[in-house]
């Protein structure tokens, strides 16, 4: 009886500790569902040097502090986020279609701000996406 109580208490303590600690571990986030319209959306902005340069400047000003200089998810604010910003150099982001990235940058979610009102125009978002494609390893 005594050993059974000890085993149950130990199990409870371990479970409670695990649940408590999980609050401090950033999650990958729930799956981010992109509407079909955006999945199929093509970029109207050619990915040329000018567009990538514009995108790089926008990245430095608006994205770098969380996503990091090279998009590795190691920005100075990344540690404070509830959701990991992710590694943009991997297939996790690079395999997503342009329209999906457009949707996510425009609308935002949780820690990720919405930029559709912040940025001057939709062209800015497409320029950002053209720059994000250059982060691929």
């Amino acid at each position, binding site marked *: 009886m005594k050993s059974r109580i000890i085993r149950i208490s130990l199990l409870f303590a371990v479970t409670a500790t695990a649940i408590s600690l999980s609050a401090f571990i950033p999650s990958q986030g729930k799956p981010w569902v992109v509407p079909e319209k955006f999945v199929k959306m093509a970029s109207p902005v050619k990915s040329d040097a000018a567009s990538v340069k514009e995108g*790089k400047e926008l990245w430095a000003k608006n994205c770098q502090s969380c996503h990091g200089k090279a998009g590795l998810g190691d920005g100075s604010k990344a540690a404070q986020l509830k959701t990991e910003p992710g590694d943009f150099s991997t297939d996790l982001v690079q395999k997503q279609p342009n329209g999906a990235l457009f949707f996510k940058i425009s609308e935002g979610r949780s820690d990720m701000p919405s930029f559709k009102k912040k940025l*001057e125009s939709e062209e800015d978002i497409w320029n950002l996406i053209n720059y994000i494609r250059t982060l691929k390893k």
Partner: protein
Amino acid sequence: MKKLSIIFRNTSILALVLFCSGFQQLVAQDSSAVKEVKTKPVLKPVKSTFESNWVLDNQTVMVAKKGTFEMDIQHRFGTVNNGYSDFFGLYAPSNIRIGFSYVIKNQLQLGAGFTKERIQWDATVKYAIIKQKVSGGSPVSVTFFGNTVIDTRKASNFVTFTDRISYFSELMIARKINTKFSVQVAPSISYFNNIPGYVDINGEIQPTMENAHIAIAAMGKYSLTPNMALVANYDQPLTQHVTNNPHPNISVGLEMTTSNHTFQVFAGNANSILPQNNNMYNQNDFTKGQFIIGFNITRLWNF
């Protein structure tokens, strides 16, 4: 008064020449390019001539996107001349302004603020008349800025209510030279209902200064990185007063920009923050090293 009208005339001519030199190119391009208008895409305005509504002591041509709400915190410490005894002015009496503005429709911004010096409240309006285009179109941006300020100290400081009020208007003309460098010039006029005076030998009140004061400002921004720039501003008084003529103001500083904030820290001469007070009453002389440390913080929200 004759001197004033000559100065005003000459300054108006200068501003008009600067404006027309850009306008001529606009007209010339439009008249010769009429046939091409239908096939050319919409002319895009240049971005980020300046990163903030402020460069140090003055407004810039920037009017943000519609629905942008801005909060300004501006602080000016005492002069550095007392050295360590007041830690180069940081512990000396200071001046502060907190301001707000909102872009109610594209190109039109309204604002208000309050300043410690003379417990002044201000209401502002800013309108972007022309925006410089990336290619073709206007080679410059032109924006109007104006304010009305009320001094809310005790009534014993004034004879009539209208003595409390002053006005400021300026026309800002700026050009983004390249991705790193932008410049702006801005002729302005300040007007004070109430001005200093003295009682002369005949017992009559004589003014020591003119009610209207004309000045011209020039500023520049040089980007070191997408987030950091060197900024500088110069204000030159043009009106000659009987006495107490204001000194020019030079300010140089560093600007740091993030998505929603702009921080500027600088050394300058004028400490009044409100432009009419800076232009009319700056008595800090840069030739005598009478500089102050100051900072501006702006925070943006988009609704």
